[in-house]
């Protein structure tokens, strides 16, 4: 019973966060709410995110999913709803910025609160990599970020394969 009540309180809280209602009115305690880090920038003078904030809170996954399929299968590379841009704006590029495993990471701050696990970051970078990717032979200097990204060890699969006819 205790558990059930806690669960319903959490659901109520989650709903109120999503709907932008004052959750504290029910809970009477702000400390229960997730602390969501501030974005680095505003989309425009009148709008914080790429769509109105209430819309993004409810439906960000729809935008990202749609963009995912458009980019992957049709080669559409508009930036407005790209996950990379979400990360670039919502996550700090400081070397000690929180990883997605931490509740202080923008995405995880809410997702851990709402108990929704996401697997985006098993493949995608969870922190901004803003510099263009340096080319090994182009002489571009590597950024600090990039240095962390590239392997410390040389890639072992360089070995050539020898095939002889019989």
């Amino acid at each position: 019973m205790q558990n059930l009540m806690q669960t319903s309180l959490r659901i109520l809280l989650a709903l109120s966060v999503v709907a932008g209602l004052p959750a504290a009115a029910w809970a009477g305690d702000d400390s229960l709410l997730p602390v969501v880090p501030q974005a680095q920038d505003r989309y425009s003078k009148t709008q914080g995110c790429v769509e109105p904030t209430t819309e993004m809170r409810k439906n960000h996954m729809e935008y990202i999913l749609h963009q995912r399929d458009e980019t992957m299968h049709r080669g559409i590379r508009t930036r407005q709803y790209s996950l990379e841009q979400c990360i670039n704006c919502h996550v700090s590029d400081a070397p000690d910025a929180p990883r997605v495993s931490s509740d202080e990471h923008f995405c995880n701050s809410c997702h851990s609160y709402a108990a929704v696990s996401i697997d985006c970051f098993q493949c995608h970078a969870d922190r901004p990599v803003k510099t263009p990717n340096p080319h090994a032979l182009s002489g571009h200097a590597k950024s600090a970020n990039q240095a962390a990204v590239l392997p410390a060890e040389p890639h072992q699969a360089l070995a050539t394969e020898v095939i002889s006819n019989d």
Partner: protein
Amino acid sequence: MTDNANIDTYRRRFLGNTATAIAGLSVAPGVFLHEVAQARPADEAVTSDVRWGMLIDTNKCANGCTDCVTSCNDEHGLTGHGRPETDAQWIRKVDLRDKQTGHTQSLPLLCQHCEHPPCVDVCPTGASFKRADGIVLVDKHICIGCRYCMMACPYKARSFIHEALQDQLPHAPRGKGTVESCTFCVHRVDEGRTPACVEACTAENHNAMVFGDINDPDSEIAMQLKQHSSRQIRADLNLNTGVRYRGI
């Protein structure tokens, strides 16, 4: 398979498996789009007016040179664990040696971006797919890691990711439990640039690789294909590969 595809396969077999015959059939579908040399606008979908291809001249490919491999690894952040058997590899150098004459040759082998890709045929989820412009990709959002495609690929072009990864590059998302292979640097191609390997090979003055739209008769690759004889590796499989070789 549609009737048309059947006829196509039949005609190809009839004409023999030489690359010249196949190039004649596939490279000139009668589409003359000259503006494709410029980058496509970001909000426009790819179309089958373009077919991306690569021509590799093995006579220019230097023995022992691995510039294309290194640049690919850097471009996509491919990291190794010191286990060559299972480390991801999108392009590799293969040395060929004729035992009788002792003649050796060196060539880069990568996903051949087949027109009829066996990897796509066998994929149970639809994760392996061919984009309209001929680039064969794995949609890792859908891939379940069954590795059927690795078994089906005649060129051993695909790798499975065995370990959890971190700090992937934004243009090359990769993760544990999925299969990956050469993307023809699709993120660059969509910006109107050439693949990293081609850029590296050219920068080092080897000029063994040409990349471009084989449907555009004015492109460098189409002109070279028209002028010189070239071959597909395992042309007998009728896959109509997007990667062609000279000198083998």
